[in-house]
Structures are given as structure tokens and as C-alpha cells.
């Protein structure tokens, strides 16, 4: 059984009458990329900051490498790398200087070659002479990741590392996170991008209003809570839509195409056989497997747009 790196039990953080984190349990195992997914205000950052030893819980316990985050964090701090949600580099420090600085804080002497290697890893080698304040948003985050890695941590917290970045910069960061996973690092990632969690995480927990709604591997979640496959019947027309409704299928009609929701328990092959027997005419068909987005919709009852929950 894999070593437990992070272990939280009954974690609660209260502000006045509001529970920002509400009786949360979680375990993260060595070498996995664990993603906490949820809309803004779900309590992700509060949770992550408690786990980083930067905020005290109101109740409950959290252990990192077996050490209590409130009492003994100093014993494990050098084994943990952190990229906060609001990361900004120092204005007048260049990337190589920032990495050397951070290495010094972790008590490491770092060579120019190692600095270069880290900068190349995060694709910032060409920016080695630029002050922090002049880096773009994506470059700043990448520098933050390089700084988080400089202490050679076993556990890395990445709190919404791609929020606000353009798609290209986001993909660039995904590659880095993939590489961290491949290197056997334990990564705790918070995000409100469903495709990010689906792409990167070995396990995902969906969080809403301070509580874990559901957790598991993306495949498990999709299979259990995705709600089945969607089949698009091309040019089935209004007649097809009416026929499918009569057959008891929930459908939508758009541009002469009909999209049918096939229940999770029914195989697509059986559904298509039934359609063909019923005489519904269509020119072509395509299937769409449910995604984490469907899981989220089914479990939370809304969709997320840039972190905002739309009910």
C-alpha cells in the first residue's frame, strides 16, 4: 500500500457563521497527482493553506508526512514546495536570482548549471535577464513552479496554477505538471478547470461549499457519476426528435441534429440497435463519452465558467 503523504480528518475552518471548510477528510498518497476541483469560494485555497501550515484549522487534524501541520510543520517544511494562488515574484529580482534565493532559503547551494536546468524545465531560460515585474502572467507562474521545485520537494502544492492564463500558457504548465507526476513527485493541485483535473490528476475530489462532494479517479467518477453516453444523430430532424421522445429518451434538437442521452447502465451498441429498429432516420452518428464536466454537473447541479458556478 502506498505511503500516505497527506492525511486530513474532520478538517473545519469557520469564519463567523460560515464554514469555509466543512468537516473535510482526505488522503493523498505518495507519487500521485491529486486534484481538488471546485468553483471559486468552494474552500480549496483555505484547505490548501491549512495543509501548507499557513493557516490554522478551527477543528480537525491535518498531517503531512505524518507530522501535524499546526505543531510540527517545521520538521517537514523543507520537503514541501508551494506555489500559492496569488504567487508574484519579487519585482526587481531576475529569475536565476530568484531561484538562487529560494535555494538558499532551503539551505541548498545551487550551481549555475542547476539553475539553468530549472529555468529550461519551465521554459524561462531565455528570460534570465528580465526582472520579475516584467514577466508575463504565465512566465511568473512558471518561475513560481521553478522556485517551488528548487528545494527538491517530495510534495508540491500548486494552488490554481493556471488561473487567468491563456490556453497556450496553460498547456505549457500542464506539461510541467505531467513531468512532475512522471518524476514520481506527489502533487496536490487545486483548480476550477475541469479539463485540467481530468488531464492531470490520478485522483480528483470535487469540492463545493467547503465539503467534498465526491472523490476518486477521473475514470471512476465518470463511470459512476457521468450519467451515461451522449449520441448525436446527424440530420435526424424534428421527426427523429419526436420519435426519440416517444421512446422515452431525453433528447435535445439543434441544427437538425438530435443529441440523445443514453443512460449509464445501457450500452451504446444496444441503444443504436433499438434506434435502427424504430426507424428513426439519420445520416450519420457520433458518440460523446461523458466527462468530468458531466460529473460536476450531475453532482453539484451547475456548470463552472472560469471558476464561477452557474446553477
Amino acid at each position, binding site marked *: 500500500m502506498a505511503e500516505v503523504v497527506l492525511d486530513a480528518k474532520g478538517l473545519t475552518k469557520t469564519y463567523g457563521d460560515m464554514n469555509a471548510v466543512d468537516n473535510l477528510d482526505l488522503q493523498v498518497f505518495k507519487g500521485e497527482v491529486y486534484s481538488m476541483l471546485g468553483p471559486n469560494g468552494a474552500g480549496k485555497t483555505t484547505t490548501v*493553506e491549512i495543509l*501548507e*501550515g*499557513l*493557516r*490554522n484549522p478551527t477543528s480537525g487534524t491535518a498531517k503531512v508526512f505524518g507530522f501535524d501541520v499546526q505543531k510540527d510543520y*517545521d520538521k517537514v*517544511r*523543507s520537503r*514541501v*514546495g*508551494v506555489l*500559492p494562488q*496569488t*504567487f*508574484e515574484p*519579487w*519585482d*526587481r*529580482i531576475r529569475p536565476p*536570482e*530568484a531561484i*538562487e*534565493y*529560494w*535555494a*538558499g*532559503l*532551503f*539551505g541548498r547551494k545551487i550551481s549555475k548549471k542547476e539553475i539553468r536546468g530549472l529555468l529550461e524545465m519551465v521554459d524561462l531560460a531565455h528570460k534570465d535577464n528580465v*526582472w520579475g515585474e516584467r514577466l508575463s502572467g504565465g512566465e511568473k507562474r512558471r518561475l513560481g513552479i521553478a522556485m517551488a521545485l528548487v*528545494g527538491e520537494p517530495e510534495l508540491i502544492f500548486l494552488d490554481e496554477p493556471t488561473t487567468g492564463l491563456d490556453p497556450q500558457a496553460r498547456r505549457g504548465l500542464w506539461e510541467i505538471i505531467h513531468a512532475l507526476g512522471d518524476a514520481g513527485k506527489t502533487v496536490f493541485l487545486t483548480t476550477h478547470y475541469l479539463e485540467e483535473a481530468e488531464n492531470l490528476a490520478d485522483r480528483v475530489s470535487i469540492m463545493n461549499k467547503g465539503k467534498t462532494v465526491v472523490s476518486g479517479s477521473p475514470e471512476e467518477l465518470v463511470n459512476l457519476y457521468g450519467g451515461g453516453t451522449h449520441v448525436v444523430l446527424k440530420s435526424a430532424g424534428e421527426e427523429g426528435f419526436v420519435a426519440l421522445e416517444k421512446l422515452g429518451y431525453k433528447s435535445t434538437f439543434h441544427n437538425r441534429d438530435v443529441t440523445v442521452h443514453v443512460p449509464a447502465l445501457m450500452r451504446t451498441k444496444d441503444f443504436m440497435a433499438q434506434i435502427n429498429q424504430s426507424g428513426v432516420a439519420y445520416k450519420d452518428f457520433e458518440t460523446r463519452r461523458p466527462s468530468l464536466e458531466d460529473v460536476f454537473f450531475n453532482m453539484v447541479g451547475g456548470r463552472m465558467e472560469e471558476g464561477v458556478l452557474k446553477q
Partner: protein
Amino acid sequence: MSRMIADFKAFGLAYLRSRTGFFFALIFPVILILVFGAIFSQTGTQKIDLPVQDLDNGTWSQTYLAKLNATGAFTIDMISPDVDFNRYIKDELKVLALQIPSGFNESVNNATRGHGPPATIILKGDPTNTYFTVGMGVANAVALQLNSTVVAMVQTENLGSPQYTFIDFFVPGMIAFTALTTPMFSMSSICSEYRNRGFFKLLGSTPLKKSEWLTAKILWYTVLMLASIAIMYVVGIAAFSAHFTITPMAILLVIVGVFLFTSFGMFLGVFVSNPESASALANAIGFPMMFLSGIFFQLESMPAYLQYIAKALPLTYLAEGLRATMSLGNDVVAATDLVILLISGLILFMIAARAMSWKGK
């Protein structure tokens, strides 16, 4: 230690790249020295502070002192006969002081009757100082007017004080001023900025300890201040032929001063929400302190109630101590000031370190 050095290096690098920080730490004090030195080096129209020790306390000595006071040239401060007057003059950095010897009354009476030489009044201090020369002229004139015949005369006693000009007074004050402004103003803003921009949380995620971070800041400002002192020293000597020296006690005072005002800046930064408010608060506290602590003019020229306030301000002791050791070679006064500053610094440091948290709420 390596963590502290890493923080010191990175902070220093960023600080030197900030033109504002560089200007206010190293250039601005020099500009003030040049401007104030040029304005005040040639003037001396204020009342002269005159400590008086009356060892006779007879009718004639009281008459003499009343007439002396009536000239309006002096602010007379009576010193107890029990005090070692020469020591007092040196410790309190006085350029002139007047002593009426015991037997003065009898000597004046004898001289009045033509039975003896005129009685003696002793003016002690630094004869090379302009104030001393002016003071001697007035004191002698008053002595000559005591009676229709010459019954008293002023003799001078050189206590061997070095020449003490405005610039000798002003440059140590400016060093104290810079030891206040550079660490206090910038630390208050830095603490606030670090909190708002998440730097404290970021640092909190590393093995760096709060005390190491604070010590690195104090070290940095000390190094910066030592550079600033060297520049002010060279400018003071080169531009105004100043007579002060940089003594080990002056270095100690600056280090303790930086420690105190860095802690004070940190303390202010803990309680304000943004760097602009921190800067405004530091200005609101720092500027009155500068004027009340005798940086630009002597405390003795202020009203008594302001002098009481000045005694409660740490900058007063830093300026006084630096003047004592740098301009007057009096390390006894400077050591007393050092102890006061050290105790105040330790108290402020402990309060600020306790109040400052890298954790979120």
C-alpha cells in the same frame, strides 16, 4: 545562517535596484547636509544657552546674574553647587558656562572699598567657539556695570573642547535622521506590501524563520547605514571642514539605532492594511520626531514642554549620543544613550515580532 544570508543578499539586491530606496538612503542625507550646512554655518543669532554655577550665592552674585539675564543674550540654567561643573560641561556638551566662585560677595565688597582687586567670574568652555566669544563679551560688560568702579572681571578657562560648529552638530544628527528614515519608513511599507502581495505566506512556506528574516533586514539596513555614514563623513569634512570622527561607539549607536527603527517600522507595518497607509503613518510619526529630537536645532532652544516630549523620543538619544561621541569625544554620554536605545529597541522588537504573523487568519 545560510537562509539569513540568502535573504540578506536578495533583499539587498532588490533594494539597490530601487532608485527611491537608494536615493533616500545615500543621496538625500548628503543633499540635506549641503543645504543646511550652507545655510546655518555662518549664523548664530539665537540666545546662548548658559549654565551657571553660583558657589557664593550672595547679594552681589544674585545682582550680577539678574543683570546678565536682563541682557536677553542668554538662557540661564542654574546648576547646583554640588555638581562637578567641569564634568557637567563636558558631559552636557556645553560650549560655555559661567561659574561664580565662593567669596565673590566679599571680594566685590573689598574692591568697592578699594581694599582689593576686582572679584573674579569664571567663564568656562571652548574659547575658539563663536558663542564663547560673544558670551564672554556680554558677561564682561555686565561685570563692569556692577558698580561705578571695576569690582568684578570675567576670566576665561579653556576646558579644551574641540571647536564645535553647526556642521559638527548637524552631521551626527543627520546620521541619526537617516538611521530613522531608511529602516523605519521602508520597513513599514515592506511589511504591508509583503502581506498584501502574499510574500509573507510565500516565505512562510519555506524553512526560513521569522527571526532570520528580521535579522537579515536589520543587517541590511546596518550595512546601508554604514555606507551612508561614510559618505556623510566625507562630505562633512570635504565641504565644511567638520571636526567629528567616526568612533566605535558611533558605529555601535548606529547599529542599535537601526535595530530599534527597523523594529519600529515593522511594528507600524503590522497594523496597517496597505503600503500607502504604512508610508503615511511612518511620515506622521517620523517627521515630528525629526524636528522634536534636535536634528536640525538644539533642544535647549525649544520650549520646556517640547523638551519633555523630546526626552521621550528615541531619536533624541541617538542624535545626542552620536554628537557626544563623534563631535565631542564624550563616550560616557553616548554609552548612556546607547543603553536607552538598546532597551527601547529590544522592547519594540519583541512586540513587533510577536505581532507579526506570516500565517493567514
